[in-house]
């Protein structure tokens, strides 16, 4: 009789175990669309069976095992971070690009062309009051156009600052969720698939925003570190980030009055900006500090727009002030056409203005050698190919302006292309993660090798394609 009771008991236990297994399956089905959830399997273990010794066998549940593959998860997170970077760069540089007229029919390029045309007309009739007035009004329009561009870019910098602040708040919010998960893990003795799903969902969301790495500690808690190693979450400790604006002083500022850059600091006040190189936050910081900084200036550079404005003003003023208003002996010297706030090289574009003291008759067409329209001709030639007056880095003013807008356009095009490619790579990483998750890689080693070879062979064909295209392109270059 005892043996029959033991068998009945064993059968009852087995039914309990199978009920648990069914519950796990049902839970998998219920959570099939839950972000971060990984399919769970109930580990079953056969119990000892000794017919003569009272051990009746049966089956016991030995805990849950999830199908998550940490390596694949990390790959998806990395590709998502890169996608976040390119997406933010494409959007942000698109905003900046919209302020530049690449066609040359509007904005600063058109205003510069109008001024050069006005100089040209004035050089033909230097004493004509209408031609003189056209020079002044064209100079006024160009200064206003440059002011407008500088102001639009400054407003964009503020908008980016707002977005950076909002993104940092999201990072902190997700870091708080991870901290809470760690607290929960510390109090629990068994794995909780629900809590783990929340953790991985949080990490997926975090990877859209910034670059980070994770380490799972022996106590089950997750340490999250920014790219440079600064911890964001360690156990139940949160190192919250905050965003601010500042003129960087390390290295010492060459332009201490420059527009500030966006800075991210941790809860100790340490600057961690350079550690954030990917994700949406990385893309925003790059565009805000590097792309806008190269145009508007920062602690280390004057900014190409200011460089352009100052070179324009200095060159035009120097030519006019070196001459006289007429060829008559004792004629008055020329007057500067432009003014700007001195002492702030990074504020020239915003402060550039038509000299309020100048009148049309104070324009000086006569050069220092006494040529009646020598100065006017020099000014009209500022946009000519090969002209060295007012050149920046070997380019005349027109070329420099074209290069400035071309650079912005190129930044946007590169980011947009990168974004399109990265979308495919990120989706692919998810597919590969799903493919390897829950699979015994040891058992599938042959498949892994087969895929590896197939990819490698494809990569080899692409190398050949690249080489052939390069060769062809080189031949086309030589023969054109």
């Amino acid at each position, binding site marked *: 009789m005892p043996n029959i009771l033991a068998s009945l008991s064993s059968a009852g236990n087995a039914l309990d175990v199978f009920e648990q297994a069914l519950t796990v399956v049902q839970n998998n089905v219920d959570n099939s669309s839950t972000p971060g959830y990984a399919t769970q399997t109930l580990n079953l273990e056969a119990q000892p069976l000794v017919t003569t010794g009272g051990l009746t066998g049966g089956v016991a549940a030995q805990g849950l095992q999830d199908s998550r593959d940490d*390596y*694949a998860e990390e*790959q998806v997170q990395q*590709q998502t971070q890169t996608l976040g970077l390119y997406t933010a760069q494409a959007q942000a540089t698109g905003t900046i690009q919209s302020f530049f007229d690449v066609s040359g029919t509007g904005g600063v390029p058109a205003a510069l062309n109008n001024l050069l045309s006005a100089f040209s007309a004035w050089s033909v009739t230097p004493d004509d009051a209408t031609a003189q007035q056209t020079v002044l009004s064209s100079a006024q329009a160009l200064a206003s156009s440059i002011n407008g561009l500088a102001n639009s870019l400054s407003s964009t910098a503020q908008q980016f600052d707002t977005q950076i602040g909002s993104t940092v708040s999201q990072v902190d919010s997700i870091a708080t969720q991870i901290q809470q998960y760690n607290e929960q893990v510390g109090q629990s003795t068994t794995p909780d698939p629900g809590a783990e799903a929340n953790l991985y969902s949080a990490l997926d969301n975090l990877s859209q925003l910034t670059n980070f790495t994770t380490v799972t500690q022996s106590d089950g808690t997750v340490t999250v570190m920014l790219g440079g190693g600064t911890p964001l979450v360690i156990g139940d400790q949160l190192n919250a980030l905050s965003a601010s604006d500042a003129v960087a002083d390390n290295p010492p500022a060459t332009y201490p009055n420059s527009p500030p850059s966006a800075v991210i600091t941790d809860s100790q006040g340490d600057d961690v900006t350079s550690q954030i190189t990917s994700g949406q936050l990385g893309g925003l910081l790059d565009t805000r500090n590097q792309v806008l900084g190269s145009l508007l200036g920062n602690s280390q550079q004057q900014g190409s727009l200011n460089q352009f404005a100052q070179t324009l003003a200095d060159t035009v003023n120097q030519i006019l002030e070196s001459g006289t208003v007429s060829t008559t002996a004792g004629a008055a010297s020329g007057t500067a056409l432009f003014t700007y706030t001195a002492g702030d090289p990074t504020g020239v574009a915003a402060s550039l203005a038509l000299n309020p003291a100048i009148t049309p008759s104070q324009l000086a067409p006569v050069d220092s050698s006494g040529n009646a329209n020598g100065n006017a001709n020099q000014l009209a030639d500022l946009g000519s190919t090969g002209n060295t007056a007012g050149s920046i880095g070997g380019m005349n003013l027109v070329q420099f302006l074209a290069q400035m807008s071309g650079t912005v356009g190129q930044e946007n095009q590169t980011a947009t*292309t990168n974004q*399109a*490619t990265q979308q*495919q*790579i990120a989706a*692919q*990483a998810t*597919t*590969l993660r*799903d*493919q*390897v998750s829950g699979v015994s*890689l*040891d058992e599938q*080693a042959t498949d*892994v*090798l*087969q*895929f*590896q*070879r*197939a*990819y*490698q*062979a*494809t*990569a*080899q*064909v*692409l*190398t*050949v*394609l*690249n080489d*052939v*295209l*390069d*060769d*062809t*392109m080189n*031949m*086309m*270059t030589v*023969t*054109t």
Partner: protein
Amino acid sequence: MAPDTAIAHLERARSGIRQALAQWDAADLERVESSRGLLAAASRDLRVFESAVRAGDVPPTAELRSTILAVKQEVVQATRVVDACVAFYRGLAARIGGAPPVYNAEGHIADESPGLEPEVLA
């Protein structure tokens, strides 16, 4: 070779590269092989075009240069997608403790050039 014929090879190569990228599915070995086949065919077409250019049969134009640059851009995109798979599986292979592949000076796995037609490698 007539210029139009050579340019038709370039266009066919471009179409093949686009098709290969569009149908690429990293988790499906058959489709990976199919994409590779399309790329190999594109490579053969490009070699024909290259020979025509070398022979001076194709007058160089700005439009043609622009097309070649566009094809190059598509190849770069495909390379990045495939390289991501190579990197993923390289890491996976290392993780399961398989012997790491040995690479030659060209960056390919040594002792194998799987499935590559001789004319593609030529």
